[in-house]
């Protein structure tokens, strides 16, 4: 019914729906009510979008975009994906070790990324997302009639991703709350996937739902561009 009102039903379905509505007063009433609700929704639309303070916006954008960051990123693309993923893992371990030795106060404090380590963290994160994306896509585009048996999973690979995720999440610390939240969401998914392999109790469609509802694939895609 909603699709009909959007004008997104095919001709055959439109004819069937109209035929049914002629005979069914309940559905006719529901259709009329939904149409009225759509009219009200239409009335809430803001016709006059105000002008933004374009100059202020552009000057902020201009300040934040930096050429060195761009140049640094381009040569990463020369590496094949597996090499980048391996390098990222080694990089994460080294950064973790260095930070642990230099900035971690024994007995307290949080492990966070500081100064130049931030750049290395960003590179590691991008490479990690490159490795993760195919797995997320496989789940996000899983057909509802498919079971877990249709998924081709390399359990060891998923476990490696989980380890990388945990390390990166710790490195994100409090200074990168958005990254940390995203990594927490991804950790839930990876744990769910590894649990599913062990017990067979989890539902891949539930994982799919979680990925789609939280917009995780989208966030990974965009975050991977930075």
């Amino acid at each position: 019914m909603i699709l009909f009102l959007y004008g997104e039903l095919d001709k055959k379905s439109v004819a069937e729906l109209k035929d049914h509505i002629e005979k069914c007063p309940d559905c006719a009433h529901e259709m009329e009510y939904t149409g009225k609700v759509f009219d009200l929704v239409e009335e809430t639309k803001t016709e006059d979008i105000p002008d933004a303070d374009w100059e202020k916006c552009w000057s902020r954008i201009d300040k934040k975009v930096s050429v060195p960051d761009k140049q640094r990123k381009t040569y990463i693309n020369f590496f094949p994906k597996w090499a980048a993923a391996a390098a990222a893992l080694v990089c994460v371990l080294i950064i973790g070790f260095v930070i642990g030795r230099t900035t971690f106060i024994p007995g307290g404090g949080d492990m966070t990324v500081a100064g130049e380590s931030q750049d290395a963290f960003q590179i590691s994160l991008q490479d990690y997302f490159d490795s993760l994306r195919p797995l997320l896509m496989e789940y996000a585009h899983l057909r509802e009639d498919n079971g877990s048996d249709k998924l081709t999973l390399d359990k060891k690979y998923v476990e490696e991703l989980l380890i990388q995720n945990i390390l990166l999440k710790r490195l994100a610390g409090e200074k990168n709350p958005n990254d940390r939240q995203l990594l927490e969401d991804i950790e839930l998914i990876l744990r769910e996937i590894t649990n599913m392999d062990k017990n067979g109790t989890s539902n891949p469609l539930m994982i799919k739902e979680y990925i789609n509802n939280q917009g995780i694939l989208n966030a990974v895609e965009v975050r991977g561009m930075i």
Partner: protein
Amino acid sequence: MNGKRMETLDLIQNAQQGDREAFSMLFEENKKKVFGLAFNYTKNKQDAEDILQDTFIKAFNGLDKFQLKKHSSFSSWLYRISVSCSIDFLRDKKRMKKSLSDWELVDRTSSEGRNPEENASREDLRRKIERLVDDMPPRQKMAFVLKHFQQLKIKEIAEFMECSEGSVKKQLFRGVENIKGSLKRLLWEKDYEM
């Protein structure tokens, strides 16, 4: 390939080389479209400006990954980033709101539907709808805004939100049903005829 498209391609290529002047022209070409979506999504100028900035910063940093072969156009690629930024923005905002409400008791008393004697006006209903849309989960709200306020096709929404058409339909269905259910209660309480 027409002149305008050629010009945009040149701008993209120059911007990919780090030319900020070219990027500023791309900003000029696309700023209204991105801001319009962000404003319809947040209904707040300041928030929409923040999303606009996030979108273009992310776009600039991801320019070397933009390939015309993979994306239908630069503006649709930008739109996709804008959708993602808007959803992230709202998620953060809701999270912050939630953590604040853990600390303080938020006064949620409102005028809506409290007094059975009061007659519901069409304006009441519109306000109620605005509130219901505002309270939708971020992705559901994005699907709803793209469909009802930006008038996009479900296929396009799925492309921008990077999910299946089925998932978009589900989000729209839930959003519309929620509004219908809430209005039905309101109308029943107030015996209002639309």
